[in-house]
């Protein structure tokens, strides 16, 4: 073929390729008079099915669209170069250029959620700390948040971004080292309020805290609600919006993304943190009590919310007690179907144990040797009678059928209760529930208020007044520990012990003996393991002033020390203060993100054979 013929062939082939392309990308047409609607080609249908059209995702930015078109398909290359440049500018501390580059990246990839998340974090967390002046740091924290909020404009109803905005407002402003200064700056930052006002409904009423000024935790709460609403309304899943329909098609993908229990704990935790922050800032009485009441109510609602588990059934965190009581009742009914059978099986099992195990089981608890501890645990596990074993031993067909039904029901409820327990542990549900209740009590208010006042008086040299306030505080703390004795063992109580040391120091300054009938002896003893007992020593050397060793004076009012729920496993006894913060939530996240499939057997009748 000559050159002309080749050219004709090429053109014909190109034209031939155009036909299928134009067929699959035919646009859809809405219904009109005298004409039916046309769903369009395959591409148009998929776009509609997955809400992938640009206009469905969020605002359309002309600059972004121009850049994308002008790059003629080289967007990926350009984005890569810009990422490298942004990293370079960060390394060389050229912040204006870094921000300009980030803007360009988001212009190129406005619907790539990870870009917004990653770079928002980068600016708020990594760039801000490079600055020495806390005002500059606040400026960059704010820039990161603004950046994320910009992201929500281009990605409407994207819960991942909305949740992150809430997290940044709460955690970055409210928990940074400079949280006192940041919270104060945020309160008076009218410009920023104007910016946020456009996004938050009724910002001026629902986001305000003390002094009738916006509070970062309450603003955070509002953003959590917005994120929650997009999921509750069905417009998006927690995994994100744009891939929602695809995930629905692939059930195994559903559990990816943020854990539902963490996702929905956000609003409650924001209000709890808000209430706790008030005490740190010396705001007590009705204001503080009503804040805790609101937080408690939101936390209870969270407990009533249906949460999808990794096994695809729904639980409510509040239902654990109810489930446990039902299991007890059903187990009792199962035992009554053939009286004495359970005991008989247990005895048989006991007899079948090896001599070593038997001995470990029969030895009184206080005489168990170190070697026997494990054996005893093993023996106890082996003599547990499962409902399935009971069912197997019933000979009467009618009774057996009823027993089987009971066993299956018990099994279901046990699995549910186990899941509820595990999900509760992830968010320290019991701890926060109890704390919300305790903090509303008058004693708690008195305890914290007077400790706060005492520290202030001590710092400012009003020693006698400080002593009086300390003594009122000890009285109130003693009442709290009497009502909630389990609190004495909690790590949060260390703050109280530190306050006792400051009190000891104050008495030294006043040349007074430490009272021999001090009411918090048990608490101090538990935490100091007997190494510090000022009430025993006459003329003892008073404790050095721990408050003056730090640059910031006495620690502020300690949080109420409450132990995590009694059912929590060993190792879960993390600092309850942290239960809602980054570290504990992050630590909990893998468990929640991954599969929570294993059901512990301890203390629960094994019903697996019946499933």
């Amino acid at each position, binding site marked *: 073929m000559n050159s002309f013929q080749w050219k004709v062939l090429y053109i014909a082939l190109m034209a031939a390729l155009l036909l299928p392309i134009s067929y699959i990308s035919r646009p859809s047409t809405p219904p009109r008079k005298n004409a039916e609607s046309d769903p369009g080609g395959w591409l148009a249908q998929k776009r509609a099915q997955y809400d992938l059209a640009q206009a469905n995702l969020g605002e359309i930015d002309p600059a972004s669209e121009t850049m994308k078109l002008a790059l003629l398909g080289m967007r990926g290359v350009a984005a890569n170069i810009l990422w490298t440049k942004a990293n370079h500018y960060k390394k*060389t501390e*050229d912040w*204006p*250029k870094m921000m300009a580059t980030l*803007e360009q990246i988001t*212009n190129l990839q406005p619907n790539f959620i990870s870009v917004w998340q990653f770079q928002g974090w980068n600016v708020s967390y990594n760039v801000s700390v490079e*600055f*020495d002046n806390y005002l500059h740091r606040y400026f960059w924290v704010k820039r990161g948040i603004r950046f994320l909020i910009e992201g929500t404009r281009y990605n409407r109803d994207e819960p991942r971004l909305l949740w992150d905005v809430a997290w940044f407002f709460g955690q970055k402003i409210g928990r940074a*080292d400079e949280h006192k200064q940041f919270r104060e700056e945020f309160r008076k930052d009218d410009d920023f309020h104007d910016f946020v006002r456009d996004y938050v409904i009724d910002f001026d009423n629902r986001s305000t805290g003390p002094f009738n000024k916006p509070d970062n935790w309450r603003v955070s709460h509002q953003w959590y609600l917005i994120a929650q609403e997009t999921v509750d309304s069905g417009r998006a899943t927690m995994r994100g919006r744009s891939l929602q329909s695809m995930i629905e098609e692939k059930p195994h993908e559903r559990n990816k993304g943020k854990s539902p229990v963490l996702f929905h704990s956000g609003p409650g935790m924001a209000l709890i943190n808000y209430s706790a922050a008030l005490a740190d800032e010396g705001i007590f009485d009705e204001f503080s009590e009503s804040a805790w009441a609101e937080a408690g109510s939101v936390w209870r609602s969270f407990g009533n919310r249906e949460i999808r588990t990794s096994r695809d059934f729904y639980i409510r965190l509040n239902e654990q007690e109810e489930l446990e009581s039902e299991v007890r009742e059903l187990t009792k009914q199962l035992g009554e179907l053939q009286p004495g059978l359970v005991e008989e099986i247990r005895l048989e099992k006991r007899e079948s144990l090896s001599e070593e195990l038997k001995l470990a089981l029969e030895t009184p608890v206080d005489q168990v040797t170190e070697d026997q501890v494990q054996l005893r645990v093993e023996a106890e596990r082996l003599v547990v009678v499962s409902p399935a074993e009971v069912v197997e031993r019933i000979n009467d067909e009618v009774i057996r059928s009823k027993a089987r039904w009971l066993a299956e029901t018990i099994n279901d409820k046990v699995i549910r209760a186990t899941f509820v327990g595990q999900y509760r542990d992830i968010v320290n549900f019991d701890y926060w529930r109890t704390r919300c209740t305790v903090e509303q009590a008058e004693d708690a208010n008195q305890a914290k208020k007077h400790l706060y006042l005492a520290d202030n008086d001590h710092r400012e040299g009003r020693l006698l007044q400080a002593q009086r306030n300390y003594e009122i505080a000890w009285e109130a703390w003693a009442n709290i520990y009497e009502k909630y004795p389990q609190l004495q063992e909690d790590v949060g109580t260390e703050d109280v012990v530190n306050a006792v040391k400051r009190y000891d120091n104050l008495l030294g300054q006043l040349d007074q003996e430490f009272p021999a009938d001090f009411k918090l002896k048990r608490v101090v003893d538990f935490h100091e393991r007997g190494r510090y007992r000022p009430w025993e020593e006459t003329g003892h050397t008073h404790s050095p002033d721990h408050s003056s060793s730090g640059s910031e004076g006495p620690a502020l009012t300690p949080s109420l020390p409450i132990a995590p729920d009694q059912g929590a496993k060993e190792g879960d006894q993390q600092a309850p203060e942290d239960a809602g913060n980054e570290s504990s939530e992050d630590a909990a996240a893998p468990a929640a993100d991954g599969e929570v499939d294993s059901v512990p057997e301890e203390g629960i009748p094994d019903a697996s054979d019946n499933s």
Partner: protein
Amino acid sequence: MVVEELPLPFIEWLVQSFRYGLAAVVVFLIGSLFFGYLLSTFRYGASEGFYLTARVMFRGVGEFFQISPRRIIAMATLAFKEAIRRRVLVSFAVFIAILLFAGWFLDTESTQPGQLYISFVLTSSNFLVLALVLLLSVFSLPTDIKQKTIYTVVTKPVRAWEVVLGRIAGFCAIGTLILLAMGVFSYWFVVRGLAHNHVVNTDDIRSSELIEGGLEGETLKNKNHFHSFPVDANDQSKTDMRMGHWHGVTRQGEGENTSYRVGPAQDGLVARVPQYGKLRFLDRTGALAEPISVGYEWTYRGYFEGGTLAAAIWRLEGITPEKFSDGLEIFWSISVFRTHKGDIEKGVSGSWTLAHPENDNQSPPIPFESKEFSLDSLYIEREFELATGETVDIFKEYADDKGRMDFILRCDDRGQYFGVAQADFYQHVGDRNFAWNFAKGYLSIWIQMTLVIGMGVMFSTFLSAPVALLATLGSVVMGFFTSHVKELALSVFNPENSTIDGGGPIESLIRLVNQMNVSVDLDLGFATTVIQALDAVIMAFMWAFAVMVPDFSRFDMVRYVAEGFNVPADVWCQQLVAGLAYSFVVTCLGYFLLRTREIAA
């Protein structure tokens, strides 16, 4: 401003470069002659080839001295007209369009809008003009040769020198005109874009404990920022520095009729002239030492410990009363590294001490509080009173006969660190005209433009247009990355001391395909040896190429202009001379290549 290496004085640079440049030219000429001889030999045989090469060389030298400016102007006019015919002015229209829509792409919240605007206009002009002259220069000669219109020229008494030079001159002329127009519009864009004013609402005047006189005012927000200013007994005051500028504030009226008028932005567009000193560090015992690394990846700044004898000392020269009759104005910018929180609401304390370089005379420390990532300044009066009541003249007390003076920076907080680099401290000599500085930014683009035109014309003398385009583009791209390519080549040649991981092109490709981390050894046994050997050969060619092409990244004055520093004469003279030298070499090469082509024809 980050200055990795302070520029050498022009004369010193010239002497150093001359030797290197001369050697390079000699090697290049010999190489070119050899290459020309090889080509001729291949086509016409050894003796005929030698004869032709010698003739071309001698004739070339002879013709060079017979160049007629009149004919060059005629050729340049032709090239100019040709460029106009090719609608080069469209690029100018594109530039205007870019300026019109720039607001869409520029970060309105930038803390340094001046830098952003200036970098934007200079960078976009740079790339547009380079792309334009690239296309213009490579298509001209090949099209003439292809369409045989070149015969209408070569049949006239025009020498090859004049053909090459004429084209370069013509394209340079049109490029210069476009650059001029772009420069004027860019200047207007920057000045207009940054111009703004603020209004003061008298309700925003409130009492302040920090200010003498007791009142502090705040302007209303404009262009994403506002300013605070002190209200004292004077009618004139200055706002604080925000987004790289400040405003003058004038109080008018009395009592209830008081109003405040805010003047235009100041210092947003400046060309400061700094005088840098030589930096050395002392360790905690007061002995000369290397600075401490606090673990940052970027090692530009060295750190020293606070609350000890550690210090950073700059020695400045030429600090004489004749130059600075009233006193000294020093500027600095420091990085702070805290090892403990300290007082969050306060900066880290530091101090400046003036010291005589030869005796123990030291001024009392002048304290300051650190401000990171911003320029801080201090005006030191020529005469000041010591605690003893004695008045001292800083030039007599702390400077030696040669005008040398030491400036000692100390960090006063124990456990905290200051980090500094040589260019982080300077004595402010004065300000130059911003417009002229802006023009210098365009001068660097002009130098790059002449280089691209030279290379484009040179390649187009012996290559077809598309190939010449690729060759020139390749050279320009390489020109922007020469230092990286050289470093990469050295890493490939000497893997033991490599500074860039990942190996040469083949190894990188294998790593890319296999998604291998650069830090993992390529463990393919004998194949690894072969791959690395091949990579070394490829990189040797790349290295040679990188050495030959001009380093475009050095022709950069944008940083100076954008960051508000005067482009020193040393820098722009060096760039101009280097650019012209390269252009000259490229023109010579173009001439001989064109001659070779004639020989071949």
